């Protein structure tokens, strides 16, 4: 059993999970949603084992570092974080019909990591700049934030869909009937953004403490840093806008979608389009 086998299986299992959630929501068949949850949880366990095994393998190769050091490993962790945040959320709010987007995002992250030619899945040794205990703290916190924003983007999309339909749809009212009410979705979204904002802030903070010990400067307006700050501004605006007349609701939902766009650009756009200190994240 190798980590790459487990992680390949994970990719397909997340696809199955997405299909189950989608079918359960569209056909309004609760057992399918339950199957989605079970598949998601089982896949998460398998992925956890895969990540753990990859960690062990890196020690066997003599490099010995946490599997959080390049694009491939961060994508795997992102997919893991999205699923664990979503499952905890599902368990807390007892709503199963919200799993389509998180499962889809988890699957897409794994698929991109596995199949893209730009992403190298080899275990590589750490360059001197990455040799620090801050690596784990920084990458984990950032990606917990990104994952929460992915879930909140999914919630916002569902909210926008929900808004297009009347509050109390009749039992034959299509898949919307399964979704929680708009005000509840709005509240879930706010909670998820606040959670993501907490981790994004801690991610930026740990990154700047690390930069200070590696490069002697805690803030250098490197494109990655700047884009994470742009993301921070957008979500800070969202948290404030919610208290403003006329913003709570659809505008906040759109801001959450835009915010997730910024997250994606911070993650992929900066790596592939802009150069800077974070070039090893390719």
């Amino acid at each position, binding site marked *: 059993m190798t980590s790459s086998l487990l992680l390949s299986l994970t990719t397909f299992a997340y696809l199955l999970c997405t299909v189950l959630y989608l079918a359960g929501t569209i056909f309004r068949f609760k057992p399918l949603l339950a199957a989605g949850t079970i598949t998601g949880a089982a896949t998460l366990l398998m992925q956890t084992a895969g990540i753990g095994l990859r960690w062990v393998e890196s020690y066997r190769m003599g490099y010995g570092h946490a599997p959080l050091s390049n694009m491939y490993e961060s994508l795997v962790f992102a997919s893991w974080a999205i699923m664990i945040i979503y499952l905890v959320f599902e368990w807390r709010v007892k709503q199963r019909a919200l799993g389509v987007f998180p499962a889809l995002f988890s699957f897409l992250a794994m698929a991109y990591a596995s199949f893209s030619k730009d992403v190298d899945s080899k275990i590589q*040794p750490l360059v*001197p700049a990455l*040799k620090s205990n801050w690596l784990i703290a920084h990458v984990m916190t950032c990606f917990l934030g990104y994952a929460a924003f992915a879930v909140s983007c999914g919630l916002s999309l569902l909210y926008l869909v929900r808004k297009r339909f009347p509050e109390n749809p009749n039992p034959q009212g299509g898949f919307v009937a399964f979704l929680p009410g708009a005000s509840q979705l709005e509240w879930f979204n706010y909670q998820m953004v606040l959670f993501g904002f907490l981790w994004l*802030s801690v991610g930026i903070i740990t990154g700047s403490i*690390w930069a200070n010990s590696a490069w002697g400067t*805690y803030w250098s*307006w490197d494109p990655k840093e*700047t884009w994470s700050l742009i993301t921070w501004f957008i979500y800070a*605006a969202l948290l404030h806008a919610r208290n*403003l007349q006329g913003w709570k609701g659809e505008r906040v939902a759109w801001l959450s979608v835009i915010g997730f766009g910024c997250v994606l650009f911070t993650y992929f756009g900066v790596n592939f389009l802009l150069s800077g200190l974070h070039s090893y994240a390719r």
Partner: protein
Amino acid sequence: MSKEKSAPGAVLDLLSSLKLTLVLFFVLAAASVIGTLLPQEISLPELRDHFSPATASLINFLALNNLYHSMWFRILLLLLCTNLVACTIERLPKTIRLIRRFEAPFDSQKLSKFGISSSIAAALPFEQTQSVVESAVCETFGRMCRIESGRVGGQGPFCAVSETGRWSTLMVYGVHLSVLIVLVGALAGSYLGFKGAMNLTEGETSDKVMLAGDESVQGLPFEVRCDKFEVSFYDTGAPKEFRSDLAIIDKGREVLKESIVVNDPLTYEGITFYQASYGTTLKEAEIDLTDPDSGKKIALTLPFRQPVTIPGTDDQLVIADYQEDLMRVGQAIELVYGKQGRQSSAQWILIDRPYHGNRIENYLVRVTRIDKARFTGLQVKKDPGIWLVWAGFTLMTLAIGLTFYSSHRKLWVCIEPDKKRKKTIVTLAGRASRNAQAFEEKFEALRAELENRLKNPPAPL
């Protein structure tokens, strides 16, 4: 009395408005995006290589090529701080009043208008109802405190409030304060500290730091010596470790010896040395100068960047620069020939390729020997503001975390006798700043429990 706001009042209103906050967030985000798309910290001539002259001038005029340090970007940050302070001035007193004060008088009419509210008509007498309600609420929601109601008189209603997490409303001020602390720390660092680079060859001692940006030199109150520099590689060829063995010499005495690697700097007297880069530099070169007219040959040894007088003349020669690979034709030195009272001339001399262009003034130049040395590139920094920045970061983490994990929950209870129906009416209402769903569940549980206990009261003692 006119209700028109005075001018300062209107300005305070604008500065403390949430709309301004939103506008500032969006403008700062947009400005930062521009900064990542345009090349930063490059000069006007360099800009002209990338853009048309008019565009280059516009970029330069708006300082978009040094955006994050430009005046207008700083003004935006200053406005954000002003907005924060103004909001605090306007809202903190209200919040504190809310936290310290007991509830304003209320009655059951007011409670029934709450989002979460419920009313129960009990057949029990007033006093017994009150004790049942008190015990049920205390078991579910914690301490209750009796407060005055709006009505006066012996048989007036009993009104009470139970709440938890009042302080959670203060957390947002903690987040705002932390932003100010971080920015003040950054400001203190940029005015009271410095940032620069220091290149030391093995064995070299120096107390001079080349400052970033303006290329001026900052002297240190002590000297640094590099005893050794090493690079190690993985089997794959990727670098594994850069290590410099440094010694600090204070007033001629060696006070500290330490090795630094990336991620593990050395700090002495508030000044920190980071392993930043490395490279090869020239130590000295031996050259032959040949006068093509007389055929006379002069051999010279030139230490790097130290002028040497050419024997028999007043003229001086200096190696001003060294390149490992000049325009992909190999190693080269830049010679500068200085003549008394005349403008000096400079010429690149190829070391590995003795070609006809290797001449300065009328001499043919041949490099016969070079002595190279490896240097370690240190980043040197003094930042007295860093502790403020760290303190701000800590406060920010705690305050955002507590905002997420805490909630202000409040429960109102009103008990009043209904003399006509010979019943006692219990009205409940609640509000939670966060996680309203969990609160609603608890509220519902309390309502059900109360209904049950009021129907089947425990035997009076």
